[in-house]
């Protein structure tokens, strides 16, 4: 009897290749190809210590200093001892267990989700985990990548596997030509606004369609990065020629004939034409405008040409309560034009938007202009920083009056002390506008790097398109 292959989605092909054991109750023990760690991993290492256990596969485990690292001074002797302690704990654990660590003095240091792809550690067809929800970023290469908690980090450290239940599959198709200046951040925020911050809960997301295919690897990384803000377990884009040419020559990626063999396998990972998804959503890419958030959840996103919503006009009571609460926290009024919202500072950086393309987009708006408000620009990695400086982009930021600092998670989560003051409003290229995310009482508006640069130039939320006229 001939076997008829069931059509499979990209997610299923990668998942199936990693199942060590499948249990009748629906749980699978999955093999994990890459495990990234940062300073927050100390809880998991404490669990290992409690069991007297060793790291099972140090060769597949990589430490990166990013969450707590200072961005203005790199000398640990000069920083808050509590923060220094966090970095030293990671160093101690990495050295005790013989793990490769991208520390502050490593030319490859940076934000874990920028470093993985940059170093060629992130490859198509892999399973990748990290104790950080934005691990979804790595799915841009066609990997299954997701964030895990400390108990799971300890489990992966000890066994290099993880028990998981196969999530449902959801496909988001974005078709059509994007208007000039529209970037992945605008696509992602449009999707979240459309389906809600829990719209993809329990699902693995695949991004498809001509608008997605047209994105660079950097754009795809931004898109997959924000999957978690839609509630998705992970986000993926099928590998194609863009993926392959990005990976060629990366330090940890296969080389020569090995690379060619790999590339052949990777291109076969794309979803079969007749693959079935549990949920399908489509968006018209040509209708997407520059997006900003006004509230305290990433789903509180609107085109910059719109106004703050009115809770009295919201359909259901839960939503009305959320809007009322959010605009109260954010210090806004219903019906206020988004472009009338003044900002106190800007931040360009984070695992969402700190890659060279993001830095270039912000610089294109800022070149020859002065920022009306203070701001911090933190490139995603030491390598992005070097490249930006070679291109002279650092001078554009400095001449505009912004701070050009070293790489780390910085003001996205504020663990290292880069904070937005209570009551202050920040135009930010980050991923979360939660209450207090950038510091107690801080107010965050999410947007693309060019939009954050435009807010710097005018001192309020601004449509960047007129500011880009005649430039490129």
């Amino acid at each position: 009897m001939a076997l008829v292959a069931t059509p499979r989605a990209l997610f299923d092909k990668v998942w199936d290749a990693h199942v060590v054991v499948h249990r009748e109750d629906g749980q699978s023990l999955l093999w994990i190809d890459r495990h990234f760690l940062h300073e927050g991993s100390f809880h998991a290492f404490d669990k290992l210590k409690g069991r007297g256990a060793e790291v099972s596969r140090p060769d597949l485990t990589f430490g990166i200093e990013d969450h707590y690292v200072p961005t203005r001074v790199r000398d640990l002797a000069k920083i808050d001892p509590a923060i220094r302690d966090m970095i030293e704990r990671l160093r101690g654990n990495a050295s005790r267990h013989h793990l490769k660590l991208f520390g502050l003095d490593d030319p490859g240091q940076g934000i874990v989700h920028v470093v993985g792809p940059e170093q060629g550690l992130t490859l198509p067809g892999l399973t990748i985990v990290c104790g950080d929800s934005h691990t979804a970023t790595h799915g841009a290469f066609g990997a299954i990548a997701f964030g895990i908690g400390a108990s799971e980090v300890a489990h992966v450290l000890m066994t290099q596997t993880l028990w998981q239940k196969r999530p449902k599959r959801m496909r988001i198709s974005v078709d059509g030509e994007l208007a000039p200046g529209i970037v992945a951040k605008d696509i992602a925020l449009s999707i979240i606004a459309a389906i809600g911050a829990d719209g993809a809960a329990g699902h693995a997301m695949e991004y498809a369609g001509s608008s997605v295919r047209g994105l660079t690897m950097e754009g795809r990384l931004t898109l997959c990065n924000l999957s978690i803000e839609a509630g998705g377990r992970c986000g993926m884009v099928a590998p194609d020629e863009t993926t392959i040419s990005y990976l060629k020559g990366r330090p940890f990626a296969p080389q020569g004939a090995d690379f060619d063999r790999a590339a052949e396998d990777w291109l076969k990972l794309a979803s079969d034409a007749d693959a079935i998804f549990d949920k399908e959503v489509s968006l018209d890419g040509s209708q997407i405008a520059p997006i900003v958030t006004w509230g305290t959840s990433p789903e509180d996103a609107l085109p910059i040409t719109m106004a703050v919503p009115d809770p009295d006009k919201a359909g259901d009571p839960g939503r009305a309560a959320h809007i009322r609460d959010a605009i109260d926290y954010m210090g806004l009024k219903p019906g206020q034009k988004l472009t009338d919202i003044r900002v106190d500072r800007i931040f360009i950086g984070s695992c969402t938007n700190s890659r060279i393309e993001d830095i270039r987009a912000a610089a294109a708006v800022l070149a020859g202009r002065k920022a009306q408000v203070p701001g911090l620009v933190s490139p995603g990695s030491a390598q992005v920083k070097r490249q930006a400086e070679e291109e002279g982009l650092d001078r554009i930021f400095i001449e505009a009056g912004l701070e050009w600092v070293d790489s780390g998670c910085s003001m996205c989560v504020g663990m290292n002390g880069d904070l937005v003051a209570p009551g202050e409003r920040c135009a930010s290229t980050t991923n979360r506008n939660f209450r207090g995310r950038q510091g107690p009482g801080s107010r965050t508006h999410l947007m693309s790097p060019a939009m954050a640069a435009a807010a710097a130039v005018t001192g309020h939320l601004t449509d960047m398109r007129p500011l880009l006229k005649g430039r490129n």
Partner: protein
Amino acid sequence: MEAFTKLSGIACPLPLSSVDTDQLIPARFMKRSRAEGYGGYLLHDLRFDEAGAPRPDFPLNALERQGAQVIVARRNFGSGSSREAAVYALVDYGIRCVIAPSFGDIFASNSVNNGLLPAKVAEADGESLIAALEEGARDMLVDLEACRIVVGNLSVPFTVDPVWRTKLLNGWDDIDLTMSQSDAIKAFVAADAKSRPWAMPRRGE
């Protein structure tokens, strides 16, 4: 891990949607080790004002909700960051069950790994539970064997992933379970090296 079968305790309404893990425990408290206890930091910036005094209008601060073991919230509870410290804060405070119409995926699995039940209810049932508590009800029964929640005369069903339910009912730990699969893991690794030779990281210079 402590097993969870039936819980009978004080419930507190938290009629907010998208209570994210940054709110459950703000990042600045995460430098502490677990041994120091995270309960004092649960929902810190909502529970306390800038001067550190309890906000009188915050539900968990109400006199009749002291010692609460259950929280009933609106949709998208525990969204955001993967920080397991958010669960530590709930558990160390004394919470054993959170009831909501939807949960952040990572938060829910972190919960189960710490013996905390994330009980999913229909949106309308969630609203009824919140209303009953706001009208003065205090005690709640959460029955994991029957997957039901009872407050006074109100009884509603909840769902939880069946595997998680079994894990909670038995207080199972994954690591022991996985260690018993070490032969299967070895066999997988050997076969995988042949089918995906490119999956190993090349040791970069």
